[in-house]
């Protein structure tokens, strides 16, 4: 265990930033969108709450090139885009976002592995920051997230200090930097963690794992309540873009000087184009698209992977312009369970 004073955090991050590309949560003034950015001069760090945009984009960027085609001057060749090597550090990640990564792993690291995601995952050293002040829209405990401890290194802030506990082999890579600024300590921080867990247990969203749907797929799929739940959905896709577990992507080409670049982009099941073929459209209205998104998170993903595809970060609750969010869906499907049993 390592310990530094709150004032020394900047020195520690600067030391890490000397050796690694370092990303930290930042917010440029009230009303701006908070997200993870390069540490830079360390200004505008935002450590007091969950960021609007999570850490997903550091591992699965909104747009990335996968290949180049050279088609000029009679040539016709394909070049696979190289992956970057070397470690980088993400400081200040919340446990819900880290659970989001573990959820993405189940998709992208399953055979055949996604080489671009895998390389970023292997390169990323994730330092979590304990989440002591859950927002009124948080419900991570519903999905078994421990907001006090996560990542390769778990950082916890107390009244005057930060403690750092190394949890993985990869976390050990930062021992030189931690040693240069922190003292080692035998302080017991479980009591501090328990305080955080106790606060988390009082999350106002008041959902419990027992509220989650556990009915047959067909019954949930055919529930009439989908009409009501989806009635105000605008199909804007905000929920999917901010979701730590949404991984749907599109593949498209763009012209380059001597051919084309093939890139993949985040896509959204909330968009009508998502499933539209020249042969037809299997999800005709927003109701079908809305149902797909929530059935995937709460039913299909669990069938395939054994866990839910939601981590309770609450971003969709905070940002949905129509308030057609996950908590409402869980409550309605939970009610459906009671009606059936």
């Amino acid at each position: 265990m390592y310990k530094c004073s709150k004032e020394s955090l900047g020195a520690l991050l600067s030391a890490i930033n000397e050796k690694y590309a370092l990303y930290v949560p930042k917010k440029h003034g009230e009303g701006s969108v908070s997200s993870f950015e390069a540490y830079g001069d360390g200004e505008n760090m935002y450590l007091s709450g969950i960021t609007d945009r999570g850490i997903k984009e550091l591992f699965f960027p909104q747009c990335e090139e996968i290949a180049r085609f050279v088609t000029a001057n009679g040539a016709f060749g394909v070049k696979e885009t190289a992956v970057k090597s070397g470690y980088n550090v993400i400081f200040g990640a919340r446990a819900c976002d880290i659970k989001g990564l573990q959820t993405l792993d189940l998709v992208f690291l399953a055979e055949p592995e996604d080489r671009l995601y895998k390389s970023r995952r292997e390169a990323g050293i994730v330092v979590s920051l304990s989440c002591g002040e859950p927002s009124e829209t948080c419900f991570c405990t519903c999905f078994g997230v421990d907001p006090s401890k996560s990542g390769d290194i778990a950082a916890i802030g107390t009244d005057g200090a930060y403690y750092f506990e190394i949890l993985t082999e990869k976390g050990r890579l930062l021992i030189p930097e931690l040693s240069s600024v922190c003292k080692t300590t035998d302080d017991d921080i479980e009591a501090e963690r328990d305080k955080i867990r106790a606060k988390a247990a009082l999350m106002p969203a008041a959902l419990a794992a027992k509220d989650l749907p556990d009915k047959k797929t067909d019954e949930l799929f055919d529930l009439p309540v989908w009409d009501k739940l989806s009635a105000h959905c605008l199909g804007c896709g905000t929920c999917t873009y901010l979701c730590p577990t949404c991984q749907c992507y599109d593949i498209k080409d763009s012209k380059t000087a001597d051919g084309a670049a093939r890139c993949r982009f985040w896509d959204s099941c909330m968009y009508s184009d998502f499933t539209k073929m020249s042969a037809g459209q299997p999800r005709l209205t927003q109701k079908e698209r809305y149902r797909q998104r929530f059935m995937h998170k709460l039913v299909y993903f669990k069938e395939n992977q054994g866990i839910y595809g939601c981590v309770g970060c609450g971003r969709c609750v905070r940002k949905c312009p129509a308030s057609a969010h996950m908590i409402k869906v869980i409550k309605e499907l939970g009610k459906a369970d009671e009606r059936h049993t």
Partner: protein
Amino acid sequence: MNAIHDPLVPQVCVIREIITETPDVKTFHITAENGEKPFDHLPGQCAMLSIPCEGEAMFSITSPMDSDRLEFSVKRCGSFTNRLHDAAPGEKILVRGPYGRPFPVSDFENEDLLFIAGGIGLAPVRSVIDSCLDRREKYGKIRIIYGARSYPDLVFKDSLFGKWKEADNTEVFVTVDRGGDGWSGHVGFVPQYVSEVCNDCKPVVILCGPPVMIKFTLAELTKLGFEKYRVYTTLEMKMKCGIGKCGRCNIGSKYVCRDGPVFRLDELEELPDEY
């Protein structure tokens, strides 16, 4: 240019030959640049075809598993298929695959087989038929029922009225929705024709065609007492990755690109009604 390891990155291939099947269907014969088959495949599997900046889409492989080329029969119906139809032999094309769960042809051994197809739905079925005919002794009686809108819309006429018709212990039944255009054979829809042809036999069924035809044919087969676990069909959804990761071709918890496109009727009935 360099080795390809990423399943999303295609290899450069060449269109060797283009057969005009109908006014809106062409069959493309494709090999790698060195003339070899780009990869091995099993009947029912698919591959992604693309042309830089023109699009990429999934097509079923219509050639049999032992063929030395990949053949794709493509109906002109959208922007990318329009571009493909304008291609000429010798043109380069990008290919990746094979994708999906094939028809379990080894499970079909010693069975009588009934192939039912409508329109361009004969494309994936042709791969199974020709693969079985290449090992004719392993299979029982083969019946093929095929329907299209009209005589000019029938694909693979050479096989329908030549190779398949002449094969051992094989019967071919062709019907069109609308007579004329020089057609003197059966006129009517596929589902009704099935009950005429297969009243008292219960072969393994391989069914592929437009959704409405599949729906009515499945109802007919159920009425005739076919067992669900002996009826196979294929599903179609929009696809981007082909490997169960881009998230768009799922029906319930199944991804058509990875868990399909071939499904047994009993498996199909487990899925939510979204296909």
